[in-house]
């Protein structure tokens, strides 16, 4: 019962977010450009009055904006996202076609980013001595550089080296071989890995110095066990708080990576649709992103509670006065 109520609350939360997002997108896009151009075969169309009128009627653009907004909301509510203005296809179908490609990219990139970040952090905590310090300093530099590495630039360099020059990996995605995922995934993962590594390594070092870590060592726990059973859990807390951030970053990065590597995907669809003011597609895509995002946040929140049971207690009373006035 409690679980049902919990789920219902989360669902309501997702609906609320989708509604706000859809509203913002709808009005902002409509205020900024004319969807008619998208409908009439792209900007610059010289369609005659009859064609314009026909298109307006077909897409309901002759009705007041509020009515159009209501219609759009109704569509989302019934999960029929309507038809794309630009592409003559249903939005649901379009998104359904593009989503898997982006999800595969995002999930692989996130996994790779985590692996890289954890490996970096592990090296940082286990490296000792003079060489260890040098390795550490170098790693830090690499992490900073990775964090501020523009994906479009990194991707271009990787293409230049691995596709053009060495011919080892395909530069683009024809949808045929797994090899074509390598460059996009790496491109997407590296900046995120850099950031995650920075954050989790600080937490890891802090945990590594805590008395409980010494205590665990005294019990004979080796470094791997210490890491897996103790310190990584502590280090994962800030990283979990950042997972929503990482996910948002992944999707924004996906736009760039998909354009660069000519991959199909939600990011590219979104970019095109946004530039063409294809309102139904943008709203549809952004709503899906919002739902995914809320899901990620829910999972991250739950994971945070699992990892840190201390958070399950009542909220801190830091800004509440004590029940009994004892100060003054």
């Amino acid at each position, binding site marked *: 019962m409690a679980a049902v109520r919990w789920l219902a609350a989360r669902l309501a939360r997702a609906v609320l977010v989708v509604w706000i997002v859809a509203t913002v997108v709808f009005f902002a896009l409509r205020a900024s450009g004319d969807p008619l151009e998208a409908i*009439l075969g792209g*900007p*610059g169309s010289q369609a005659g009055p009859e064609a*314009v*009128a026909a298109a307006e009627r077909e897409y309901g653009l002759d009705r007041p904006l509020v009515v159009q907004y209501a219609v759009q909301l109704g569509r989302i509510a019934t999960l029929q996202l309507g038809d794309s203005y630009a592409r003559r296809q249903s939005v649901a179908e379009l998104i359904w076609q593009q989503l898997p490609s982006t999800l595969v990219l995002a999930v692989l990139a996130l996994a790779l980013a985590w692996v890289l970040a954890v490996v970096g952090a592990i090296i940082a905590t286990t490296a000792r001595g003079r060489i260890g310090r040098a390795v550490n300093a170098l790693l830090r530099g690499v992490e900073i550089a990775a964090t501020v590495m523009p994906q479009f630039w990194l991707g271009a360099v990787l293409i230049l080296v691995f596709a053009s020059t060495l011919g080892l990996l395909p*530069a683009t995605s024809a949808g045929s071989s797994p090899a074509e995922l390598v460059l996009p995934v790496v491109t997407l993962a590296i900046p995120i890995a850099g950031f995650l590594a920075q954050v989790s390594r600080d937490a890891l070092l802090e945990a590594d110095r805590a008395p409980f870590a010494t205590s665990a060592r005294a019990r004979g726990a080796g470094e791997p066990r210490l890491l897996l059973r103790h310190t990584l859990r502590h280090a994962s807390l800030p990283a979990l708080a950042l997972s929503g951030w990482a996910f948002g970053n992944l999707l924004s990065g996906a736009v760039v990576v998909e354009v660069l590597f*000519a991959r199909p995907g939600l990011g590219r669809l979104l970019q095109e649709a946004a*530039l063409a003011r294809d309102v139904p597609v943008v709203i549809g895509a952004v709503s899906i992103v919002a739902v995914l995002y809320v899901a990620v946040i829910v999972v991250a929140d739950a994971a945070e509670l699992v990892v840190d049971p201390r958070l399950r207690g009542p909220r801190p009373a830091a800004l509440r006065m004590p029940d009994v006035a004892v100060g003054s």
Partner: protein
Amino acid sequence: SCAAPDAGEDAVTETGGTLVYATGDAEPTCLDPHVGGNYPQALLSTQYLEPLFGRDAEGTIRPWLATDWETSEDGLTWDLTLRDDISFTDGTPFDAEAVKANIEHLQDPNTASSTGYLAVEQIDEIEVVDPAHVRLHLSTPKSALLEALSQPWTAMESPAGIERGQDENCQAPIGTGPFVVDEWVPQQRVELSRNDDYVATNPEADHDGAAHLDGIEWRFIPDAATRQAALASGEVDVIDNPLPSDIVSAEGQGITHIDAPRPASSNRIELNSAQAPFDDIRVREAFVRAADPNPGIESLFLGTAERSYSPLSSMEPLAYADPALFETDADAAAALLDEAGWSERDDDGTRLKDGERLTVRFPVSTDQSTAAEQSLFEQIQENAASVGFDVVLDPVDLSTWYGALGAHEYEAVSAPYTTVGPDVLRILYHSSGTVPAPSGYFANHAMLQLPELDEALDAAASALDPDERAERYTEAQRIVLESYAVLPLYDQQNHFLVKGATGIATLGTVATPTFVNAQLTD
């Protein structure tokens, strides 16, 4: 029509195989070029649709699906003779009824055709004389009718295909071309396979019967560097829109370069003559004299583009150029501005008149202008600044760009326009082009409203005598150039790089490539 020279001597050509073409142009939103009508659609539909007429390198009209034509004295009635041995790939015969269905499809508001619609706008009635003969009745004489019907946007589709409705027809239009649309995977590729029953009507075809290739995989790779990398690594065989630097370095890498400038208009900057400060011809001339694009064209395009002095493409036999009008002369520009009353200077060197700054808003469409072109605009901005112009470059997405044009929030703009033949001058510079279409679009960005220009253009449009037509178009171009409302830059760039294939030709109409003769090499 420019046949690719053979790639390397020892290359072995083979029959069959799938050629991979990577385009940098946008992915069409509908594969039927009747709907809307832009260049990406033209590129792709050239492979599976064919028009009634073709055009050769000299600009002469050639038969294609239509074999012959005849015009009445008054230019209002056109009799076309059609081939009687052609069927669409769905088995529907190509005949006069099909032509009628296609033109009506273009004229139907529900098709939402813009480019093709303009081409057939003046056709009042389509009379089916017999299966091989069709008679077109026009509302006004139109000398450019055959050129209009040679465009890919008016190509013939199976009436049965059209009947399926737009949603389905957009996915896979049915034509008579050498290839057939198999599947369209959005944002990734369109798969085309050989039309085995192809009858070689294409004026560029060098053999009878079907194409050599088994099929074409048509891919969308928006990023130029990625496209080039894909070509270099052999992932694709042909790319379009290469970077100038890649064209230059292609030679040493066994890559074939095809330079096929688009017809109709040249690439040019147009100055809005309807509002200050460019409502004064002296200010326009000052800008044109100060712009000095030549060094930039040389260094940015690395010799792959040639400076133009004509409003028309060098592919148009009727193009008229006058380099003398465009000689760079900063002193003369300054004098002109002084004379026009722009004599004071602001702190940053911008000229003033009655407290107004000499500002030129220049919205740039990042979708339509290449990186090199945008850099050229930056150089023009800097050169114009030295005589006191404050050019505000604003790189924006297409929708915003059209918005700025529609609201007349621009003093300068570069808007390419592709069609077939010099009739483009009428579209671009006739005063009727200043009246916006219901969608807000208007083609006459220079806002030229010159009675003598209108007269010359009208006369050229209805002139059936080639000489008179040529004369009138020359006159029109002279007027346009002398108005200083246009700064021609170069032809609309249209380059292809090929690696691992031969026999690729481009059509004489809008310079789209055809793969009817193409073969893979290894």
